[in-house]
C-alpha cells in the first residue's frame, strides 16, 4: 500500500515536472518569437570553396544514395522554388526583371544604380588598399560619403578587366540577380587622397599603414590612358548588415524566409548556364554576399553576386587562360580520360589553343574570348557545384527563355556599359555574346518542349512554339500532340493533334470542380523524336498551372 502511494506520488511529481517543462519551453518560445531574427555570418573563402567543392563534395557526393538512385532510374530532381506557372517568383535571390517585362535599352545599359558613381567634386579618400600580385585595389570614400571598391586593368590590357566586370554586372542584373552598383570611373592621379588611418594588405600577407609614398608606388604599376587617366570599375559598398556569403548548396537555416535548399533553387542551378553565356569561369559561392536590410519594418536578406572580373575574356590578372571554362580547377573526369588516352587525346581547349597559335589575344580589351569549341553542355566553372549539374530540362528551358528575352540590341546596350574606346572591341564582345546566346538556346530548345505562353481565349487554348518564334525550328511539319486528362483521375478524356500552335477546348473537358490536365508534346519533320511533355492545368477560369517535364 505504502509502495503504491509512493508510486502515485512519483507519477504526480513527474507530471508536474513535465507541465513545468512545457511551461518554460512555451515561455521561452514566446520570448524568442518576440525577438528579431539574428543572422550568423556564414564564412567561405576561395580555398575553402576549392576544398569543399573539388575535394569534399566530389567525394562525399558518391556516398549520396539518393543521387545514385536518381542516376540509376534516370530521375531528375525538380527545382523546388518554382511556382504553379513554372516560373521563379521574386525573392532575396532573384527579381524577375527582363523576364517579366522587357527593360529599356537605357535601363539595361545603366544596370543597378543608386548613384552615378563616385562623386569626384572632392578627391577620393583612400581608406584601404590590397595588393593582389602586383596590382592594387582600393577602398575609397567620395564627397557624398559613399564608399566604393576600385579595381583596375592590368598593364597591356586596358579596359579588359574593368569592361568585363561592368558588362557582366549589367547582364546579371537584367537577368534578375541581385548585384551591387558597378560604374566605370576615369580618374586622375591627383584625385586621390590617402586617409590618415588608411591601411594596406601587402602581397606579402602583412597589413601595414598605407603611406602616400606606398600609394604612389601602387599607382605607378597601373596603366593610364592617353589623357593620363586611370580606369577603374567602381563597386559601391552596400549599406546593410553583412552576413558572409551564401552557399550554392544548402539554405541559410537562420533565415526563416530561406526555405528551399539553394541547390534546389532554379535561379541558382541556372547560374551555371548564365556563367557559360558570360564566360564567367570563376563564378563562386565565395564571391557572393549576404546582406540584411530593413524594409517596411521587416528584416530581409539580400543575396548578392559580386566580383565579375573573371567574365568574358578576362581574369583578374589579364586575359583568360586557355583551359578556363573547359575544366574544373581539379577535374577528375578529364584527368582520368587523359590518363587512359595515354596523352593522345587533344582536349577541345588544347585544340583551340593550338589553332589560335597559343596567343591569348587579338584585341587586348577583349582578351581570350571566342565561341570556337564552345559547347553549352560542357562549360565548366572553376568549381564543380552540384547545383549546376542538377539543371533539369525545365530549368534549362526557363534559362533559355530568359536568354532569348534579350534582343541583339539589348545585348549591345549592355556591352555599351563597358565604355570601350574602340567600337570594334564592343562589337566583338556583343557578337560573341549574341552567338553564344543562340548556341545555348538552341541546345536547350532541342532537349525540351518549347511550348510556352499558354492562354485561354474564346474557348481556344493558344500557345507559342518558342523554337519557331526564335527561328530555331521550321514553321512547317510540326505536329502538336495533345492528351486531355481529368486531374486526379487516371485515363485520357480525349486525344488530338494540331498543326498550328492552338487547340479548341471543348466545354465537356472542363470539369465543374477541379482542373483538367492537358499534356502537349511536339514532333517535327526534321527530327524523328517526340519532345518531352508540358502539362497545362486548366479550369473554366483559364490556365491554372504549367509544368515542363524535367
Amino acid at each position, binding site marked *: 500500500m505504502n509502495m503504491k502511494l509512493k508510486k502515485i506520488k512519483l507519477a504526480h511529481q513527474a507530471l508536474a515536472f513535465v507541465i513545468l517543462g512545457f511551461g518554460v519551453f512555451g515561455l521561452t518560445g514566446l520570448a524568442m518569437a518576440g525577438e528579431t531574427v539574428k543572422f550568423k555570418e556564414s564564412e567561405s573563402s576561395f580555398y*575553402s570553396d576549392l576544398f569543399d567543392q573539388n575535394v569534399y563534395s566530389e567525394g562525399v557526393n558518391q556516398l*549520396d544514395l539518393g543521387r545514385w538512385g536518381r542516376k540509376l532510374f534516370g530521375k531528375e530532381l525538380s527545382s523546388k522554388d518554382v*511556382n504553379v506557372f513554372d516560373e521563379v517568383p521574386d525573392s532575396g535571390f532573384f527579381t524577375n526583371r527582363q523576364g517579366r517585362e522587357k527593360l529599356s535599352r537605357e535601363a539595361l545599359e545603366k544596370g543597378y544604380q543608386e548613384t552615378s558613381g563616385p562623386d569626384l567634386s572632392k578627391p577620393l579618400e583612400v581608406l584601404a588598399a590590397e595588393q593582389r600580385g602586383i596590382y592594387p585595389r582600393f577602398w575609397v570614400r567620395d564627397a557624398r560619403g559613399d564608399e566604393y571598391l576600385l579595381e583596375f586593368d592590368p598593364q597591356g590590357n586596358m579596359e579588359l578587366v574593368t569592361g568585363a566586370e561592368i558588362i557582366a554586372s549589367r547582364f546579371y542584373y537584367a537577368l534578375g540577380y541581385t548585384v551591387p552598383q558597378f560604374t566605370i570611373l576615369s580618374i586622375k592621379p591627383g584625385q586621390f587622397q590617402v586617409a590618415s588611418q588608411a591601411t594596406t*594588405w601587402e602581397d606579402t*600577407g602583412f597589413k601595414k599603414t598605407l603611406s602616400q609614398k606606398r600609394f604612389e608606388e601602387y599607382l605607378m604599376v597601373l596603366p593610364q590612358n592617353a589623357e593620363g587617366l586611370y580606369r577603374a570599375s567602381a563597386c559601391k559598398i552596400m549599406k546593410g548588415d553583412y552576413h558572409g556569403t551564401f552557399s550554392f548548396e544548402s539554405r541559410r537555416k537562420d533565415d526563416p524566409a530561406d526555405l528551399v535548399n539553394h541547390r534546389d533553387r532554379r535561379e541558382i542551378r541556372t547560374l551555371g548556364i548564365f556563367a557559360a553565356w558570360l564566360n564567367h569561369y570563376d563564378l563562386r559561392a565565395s564571391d557572393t554576399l549576404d546582406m540584411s536590410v530593413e524594409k517596411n519594418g521587416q528584416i530581409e536578406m539580400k543575396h548578392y553576386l559580386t566580383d565579375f572580373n573573371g567574365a568574358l575574356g578576362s581574369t583578374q590578372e589579364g586575359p583568360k587562360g586557355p*583551359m578556363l571554362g573547359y*575544366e574544373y580547377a581539379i577535374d577528375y573526369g578529364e584527368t582520368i580520360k587523359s590518363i587512359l588516352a595515354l596523352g593522345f587525346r587533344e582536349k577541345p581547349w588544347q585544340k583551340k589553343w593550338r589553332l589560335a597559335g597559343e596567343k591569348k589575344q587579338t584585341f587586348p580589351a577583349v582578351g581570350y574570348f571566342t565561341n570556337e569549341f564552345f559547347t553549352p553542355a560542357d562549360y565548366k566553372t572553376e568549381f564543380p557545384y552540384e547545383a549546376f549539374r542538377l539543371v533539369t530540362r525545365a530549368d534549362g528551358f526557363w534559362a533559355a527563355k530568359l536568354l532569348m528575352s534579350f534582343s541583339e540590341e539589348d545585348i549591345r546596350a549592355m556591352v555599351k556599359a563597358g565604355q570601350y574606346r574602340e567600337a570594334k572591341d564592343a562589337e566583338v564582345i556583343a557578337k560573341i555574346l549574341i552567338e553564344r546566346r543562340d548556341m545555348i538556346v538552341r541546345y536547350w530548345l532541342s532537349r525540351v518542349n518549347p511550348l510556352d505562353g499558354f492562354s485561354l481565349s474564346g474557348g481556344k487554348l493558344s500557345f507559342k512554339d518558342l523554337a519557331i518564334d526564335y527561328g530555331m525550328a521550321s514553321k512547317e511539319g510540326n505536329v502538336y500532340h495533345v492528351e486531355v486528362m481529368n486531374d486526379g483521375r487516371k485515363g485520357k478524356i480525349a486525344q488530338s493533334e494540331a498543326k498550328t500552335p492552338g487547340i479548341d477546348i471543348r466545354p465537356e473537358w472542363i470539369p465543374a470542380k477541379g482542373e483538367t490536365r492537358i499534356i502537349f508534346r511536339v514532333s517535327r519533320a526534321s527530327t524523328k523524336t517526340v519532345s518531352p511533355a508540358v502539362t497545362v492545368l486548366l479550369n473554366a477560369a483559364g490556365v491554372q498551372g504549367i509544368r515542363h517535364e524535367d
Partner: protein
Amino acid sequence: MTAKARKLFSFLCLGLFAFALIGYGEEQKADLYAPVYNKPLSAQPLKDVLSRIIEFPFKLIKWPTDKGIIYTEQHRLDKKTKWIYEQSLKQGVKPLFGFTDLSALPFFGAEFNLLTLARQKEKYPDLFATTTLLYCPSVFFSIGSEIGAQKIGGTGFHTKGLFSYDRQQKEPFYGIGPHTSMGDSTSYRLTTTRVGAAAGYEFSPTIDLDAGFDYRKENILNRAHDGKGDIRSIFAGQNIPGIGGDDLLDYSLVLGRDTRDSKDEATKGSYQKLLFQFTDSVKGTSARFFKYQIDMAKYFQLASPRRILVTRLFAEHNEKIDHGEVPFYDMAKLGGAGANARDSETERAFVYNRFYGQSALLLNLEYRYTVMEYKEFKLKTAFFSDTGEVFGKIHQFRVVDLQESYGIGFYLSYARNTLLNFSVAHGNEGTRFYVKNKLAF
C-alpha cells in the same frame, strides 16, 4: 431629363451585357510570377537519412579543415609563408626540403649564401661562398661549404674550393654483384670528410669542363639494424674492399653539356655528363682505381610538348689499377628513385643501394604526358621502365642478369617546379612507392 437617364441606363446595361459576352471563355489574367506553389515551400534536408549518416564522419573532418583554411586565408598565412621564403632567399638563406628514398623520410636544411648574408654579393657578383646544411633524423647529416669564382675576369674560367662533412647513419648493403639477396642485408654508418678544389672552363652556357682534386676521409662504422647483424658477420668470408674505411685522393675531369629547357621539368633538349676519375689511397691501402662514368638523357617531344619520351643511359666502370681495389662504397650502385644527389642510380622497383658492383649499366625509358593543366599547375602521368645491372669486369655483363623495373608516376608541378612526385614501381623484388618533390631525371 428622365428620358436621357433612361437612355444612359439602357446603354450602360447594353455595355455590361456586351462586356459579359466578350468575357465568356476568357481567362482571368494571372500573375505568372506570383509566389503560388503546388505545395507550400518547406525546409527539407539535402540528403536522405542514411546518406547523412554515412556522410557524418566526413563532416567531422570538413568542419575543422574549412575553419583552418579560412583562418589561413583571412590571415594570409599562405602569402606570409611565401614572403618569408622569398625574403630568406633574398637574405642569402635558401630553405631545402625533400624526401629520402629510405623510408620516405623527410629531410630539411638550408643553403647559406655567405656573400649575400655579408651584403657583399653586389660588390663581388662573380664570387660565391655557400654553406649547405642538410639533416634527416636517423638517416643523415651533412654540411658542406664551397667558395669560388663563377667567371674569372669575365671569361668562362671558374674555380672553387670545397669542404664537406657527411654522416650517413644507415647505408643499406646487400653484398656485391648482381646475384645478391635481399635476405642478406645490413647497413653501415659512413662518415665522409672531403676537402678539395676544382677549376674549369665554360665554353658556352651549355658546355662546361671541370677538373677537380679532392682529399677524402671515409670512416666506416658497423652497426646492426632491424635485428640484422654486423656487416662483417653477415658477409663473413666475403671480400668487401674498403670495409675499414680509407683516406683517398680523387683527381677528376667532368665534361658536361646541358641543353634542356628546364632542369626540373624538361620537355626538350638533352644532357650529357662524362666523368673520368682517378682515386688513390693515401693510407697505403689497396684502394686505387679509375672511374669512368657516362650519364646522358634526351627528351623527345612526340609531336607535342605535352608528350615527352625520355631516354637515359647511365654507365659506370671502376677499373682497378696496379693491383688495387675499388672500395665498396665507391662502387656503382643501383636502386631507388635516384632523385637525391647521393642516391644510388634510378632502379625504382628495388630498394636504395640494392646493387653494388664494380660496373653498372642502366637504361631508363620514361614516357611522360600531361593529363591536367590549370593555370600554372600541371599534372603529368609517366610510364617508365628501368633496366639495369651491376657487374664486375666488362666481359662479366650478362643480359640475363638485367634487373627490370616498371611502373607509373604522377608528377604535379607549378610553374615548371615539381611539387610532388608520386611513383609506384614493380619488379621481381616486389612493389615500391615513392613520394618526392623532385624527378629522377
